[in-house]
């Protein structure tokens, strides 16, 4: 490295500053970019590796670091996953979670598409304020709301029912999706709608045949985002659901699988792995939409 700097500085004395010449040299790149990047990736992924490897380790290996290398499995086993699938109601929890996630995503997509269309396209007096109000709703965290919401849910007779979660999750999904879709509708040329209006289409026809088909990427981003957020939600599901069968995966693993003083780490990690997989797979199919929705929402 000193070489390259020396060389470049002799050249650079006459013209450019040495910094620009040394910038792309290999060793420097390695030290400044690849090494820290490698550390970041290692640390960010290690808990998942640890989760995966624990869920396939037999109990004897889990508790014995002296005779086995803890970073590898010498005799992998499916016992933990079998236990999870056949001795607990894990499939039931997965089904409930899936139902809640799909239900609340659908509900909030419908509500936020209509709201975003009204705010962005049917411009009326005060529409920016409605938009701002919906944005502010996003800043109200669930931790403040769960106690009064619990009493509201009881009043509606929805306590211990997944329907309560389907109705409550849109409170944090709708603001986000609306904001995302307003940005998306903005990018669709208004002239297309004017043409349709001139041709005698009604407003609803315009929404259904012109705006929505053009906004499909935005709808997909909003849908993925809502699905992951509702899959991962914890505090409402913990507060509103009591019976074991109706719990969602994150709550059930923490409250039903953690029993007694000796934790069954194998089964716990297998449950976490299986609970994370659907979101991870879903995410990997739509990474680009996901990243663009995340960054788009921040830019808005």
């Amino acid at each position: 490295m000193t070489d390259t700097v020396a060389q470049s500085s002799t050249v650079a004395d006459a013209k450019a500053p040495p910094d620009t010449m040394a910038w792309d040299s290999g060793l420097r790149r390695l030290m400044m970019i690849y090494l820290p990047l490698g550390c970041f990736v290692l640390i960010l992924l290690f808990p998942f590796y640890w989760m995966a490897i624990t869920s396939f380790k037999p109990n004897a290996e889990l508790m014995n670091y002296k005779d086995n290398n803890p970073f590898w499995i010498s005799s992998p086993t499916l016992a933990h996953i079998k236990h999870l699938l056949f001795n607990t109601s894990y499939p039931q929890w997965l089904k409930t979670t899936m139902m809640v996630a799909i239900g609340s995503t659908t509900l909030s997509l419908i509500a936020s598409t209509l709201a975003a269309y009204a705010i962005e396209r049917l411009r009326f007096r005060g529409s920016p304020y409605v938009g701002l109000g919906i944005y502010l709703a996003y800043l109200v965290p669930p931790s403040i709301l769960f106690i009064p919401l619990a009493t509201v849910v009881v009043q509606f007779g929805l306590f211990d029912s997944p329907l309560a979660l389907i109705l409550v999750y849109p409170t944090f999904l709708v603001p986000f999706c609306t904001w995302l879709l307003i940005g998306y509708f903005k990018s669709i040329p208004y002239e297309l709608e004017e043409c349709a209006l001139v041709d005698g289409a009604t407003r609803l026809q315009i929404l259904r045949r012109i705006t929505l088909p053009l906004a499909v990427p935005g709808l997909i981003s909003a849908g993925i985002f809502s699905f992951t957020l509702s899959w991962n939600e914890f505090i409402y599901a913990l507060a509103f659901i009591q019976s074991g069968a109706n719990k969602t995966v994150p709550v059930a693993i923490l409250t039903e699988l953690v029993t007694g003083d000796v934790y069954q780490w194998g089964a716990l990690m297998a449950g976490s792995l299986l609970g994370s997989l659907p979101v991870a797979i879903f995410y990997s199919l739509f990474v680009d939409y996901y990243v663009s929705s995340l960054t788009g929402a921040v830019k808005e």
Partner: protein
Amino acid sequence: MSVTTLSSHALAQRQPNWIVRLFDCKPFLIAMCLAPALGLLSVFLTYPLGLGIWLAFTDTTIGRRGIFVGLENFQYLLTDPLWWNAVFYSVFYTAIATFGKFALGFWLALLLNNHFPFKSLLRAIVLLPWIVPTVLSALAFWWIYDPQFSIISYLLVDVLHWKSSNIDFLGSPWPARFSLIAANIWRGIPFVAISLLAGLQTISPSLYEAAMLDGASAWQRFRYITFPMMMPILAIVMTFSIIFTFTDFQLVYAITRGGPVNSTHLLATLAFQRGIAGGELGEGAAIAVSMIPFLVFATLFSYFGLARRKWQQGEAND
């Protein structure tokens, strides 16, 4: 093309149908479009928010309607060492975790802004900690922090021989507090990094070229170009991060449940413990309401961040 096919359809359907005409009436249509979103938000967000503030002034418990007791709940909280402890740890947790997330996240964003092979794959991998349900990754951290079989202890004691005994991560207050903060930073880095990366990519390269021609060093380019250009987006992302770190619940509930000896309670977990698990709805609501001043402060911060952004870009930017 779709427009031409549409016109014939539309003409065919143009009958003096009152429903069609009603839906073409703009005020009615606006009301119909806004109804689902505003309905959901007002029933499940605005009403509970008001109800929560009301509950904080009553002595409601589960199964019994409370009566108005004025400021009694808050007076009690002010004399409660556990509440003060939770306030202290919430502020401490938010401050340290936000600082860590932004320092490391900004660094990661700067690294990801370079050109190298498999860039989009790497960007996808980096987001993983943020996608996966927090409780489930928290369980992995719980296992990593196990007193006997912690993999970190194994590395430090048996492989590197830096320490002579296992680290007791969650058994005593201060190590437990820092362990939770580390888990929170781990979870928050991806969001910060990817959001800031989006901001970095909007900075025009010509600014850097101009600075390099003027002889600016790498540090000067960062200090006088990258940082000021990133200020608006930093302000927004930081507000979000502060709000959701301050009101965090999942990590603490999953890993320590507020223990050991209540030293790691955040306001949210304390509210849950008193309000839902203990049944004292009024007191729990008062603890939750006591978070609001901090959140208002953070939102104002966001507002001025946004306002400054508008001002930097000129008025007509919408």
